[in-house]
């Protein structure tokens, strides 16, 4: 983490606030805190923000707020950051059916790591994974913190179509495909949740800076949840993240 945040210029309509030059939960939590603080302050002229692994891009309208003014406001906020109350991140549960047609590569993953399928599921569902950022395709979460015990290289020949909701492993990363797309991830399961639905009130389910927790479910449960989502009465399981005391 940098001693001092860097303010980088990205044209005359965006400023990048950079907190460090590595991928770490501590840096990412700063990105989240700064984004919430800016949001709370309601600075006129800020259009939107793009949080990423270790920086926050602030898009602004120079016709409403010029470079000097926004820079000053952001730096003032930086100084107050320790005194602004930032709510704890939310953990959202991702019900996932593992193996069989839901996760055709789970045996590859087990074999590659000398584990049983049950052990793979146990390890994959044990942790809460930080959503560092969303990108690549709408709603795709870049997750951190997967256990190296289940790390597996990508497929040698990528699939031409992976259906939305598929949960996979690529190297030491785990992720969920929000929409149908080609890809080379080892598929271990599938969630009936929709990470992206353009016509829903909240089109994207996940948010950078929050966490997800995979929960193993049976096929019967999968069908039930799928039905509930279709009828718009599924209730998402969420809880505040327990923060370690430092």
């Amino acid at each position, binding site marked *: 983490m940098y001693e001092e945040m860097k303010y*980088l*210029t990205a044209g005359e309509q*965006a400023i*990048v606030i950079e907190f460090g030059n590595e991928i770490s939960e501590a840096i990412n939590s700063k990105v989240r805190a700064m984004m919430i603080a800016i949001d709370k302050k309601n600075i006129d002229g800020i259009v939107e923000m793009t949080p*990423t*692994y270790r920086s926050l891009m602030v898009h602004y309208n120079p*016709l409403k707020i010029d470079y000097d003014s926004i820079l000053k406001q952001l730096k003032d906020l930086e100084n107050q950051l320790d005194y602004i109350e930032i709510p704890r991140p939310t953990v959202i549960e991702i019900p996932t059916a593992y193996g069989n047609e839901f996760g055709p590569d789970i045996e590859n993953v087990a074999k590659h790591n000398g584990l049983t399928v049950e052990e793979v599921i146990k390890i994959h569902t044990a942790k809460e994974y930080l959503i560092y950022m*969303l990108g690549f395709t709408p*709603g795709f979460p870049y997750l951190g913190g997967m256990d190296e015990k289940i790390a597996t290289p990508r497929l040698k020949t990528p699939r031409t179509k992976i259906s939305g909701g598929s949960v996979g492993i690529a190297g030491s990363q785990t992720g969920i495909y929000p929409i149908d797309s080609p890809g080379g991830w080892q598929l271990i399961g599938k969630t009936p949740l929709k990470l992206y639905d353009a016509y829903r009130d909240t089109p994207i389910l996940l948010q950078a800076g929050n966490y997800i927790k995979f929960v193993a479910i049976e096929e019967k449960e999968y069908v039930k949840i799928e039905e509930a989502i279709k009828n718009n009465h599924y209730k998402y399981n969420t809880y505040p993240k327990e923060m370690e005391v430092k």
Partner: protein
Amino acid sequence: MNQIKILNHGLLTLVQDGGRYGYQQFGVPVSGVMDSFAHRIANILVGNDENEAVLEMTIVGPHIEFENDCVIAITGGDLLPIVNEAPIPMWESIYIKEGDRLSFRYMKSGCRSYIAFSGGIDVEVVMRSKSTYIKGKIGGHEGRPLKIGDVLKIGKPKENLHKLKGRIVPPKYIPKFTNTIDVRIVLGPQNEYFTEKGIKTFLSSPYAVTNECDRMGFRLEGETIEHVSGGDIISDGIALGAIQIPGHGKPIIMMADRQATGGYTKIGNVIRSDLYKIAQAKPGDQIRFSEISVKEAQQILKEVEAKIIAIKQECVAREIVSTKQFHLKINGKSYEVKVEEVK
């Protein structure tokens, strides 16, 4: 309900507005028109909100049949528009009668043209925008480019159609599109990832637009730009007009459909006021970059804004109060003369 029918779709004809803002943090591209100046002026000419959806046409224009009277305006690259058999001017409001057919000859200059319809295009607003995002299959008409047989609904005009006649953009405001393009940039956010020599190369050599240029980005060919140590970074946000330099050292200018984030170094950013020049560039065109400060870029943006306000005032002031037609005979030849009195 007013509507138009697409008799032929052209090369790539899309419903676009000012863009889909507020979703970049979720990985959703902004989309929207490539040439924002042409888009806004087209809407002003037909009495719409400046952000209203228009048709963006690329290189080959569509054929359109109007099922109702309508006022349209065509701006941007010169596609040589024709109504029925007769050529019509660009950058003016044009009264179209029920049954008229609009077509285009060929791209005389530029690369993208825009048609605004009085009343706007009545498609569903998806995630706060009417813009088509092709890869995400959302927005516009069924989330895709237009095709033969499509029917688009046109909204109710805000003003009486006859009051919209005669709106003309004064020639001094109409941009000229050339094959050599000077583009102003602001350095950053990763200019420190380049050697002094690399920055100098970037700012002193011409770069040619390659065939790989679309709504996502423009790949350029030219002198290799030297990095200090590679072109990869930990992914961060990408602003409109960002100039990415991957490891191979050649620039890619990020346009309307760009991904919201990416992992390549960005040497600089094309200023918003010059982005229309990129939007109108074709393969083979030469681009030269020059550096200005953020403050200068913001000053230029204000000047462009003032120019748009001036155009709006001059257009609206030219409202036609009355029209008289005369039949004249000069030296034995007959002439039909139309005299329009403007306010």
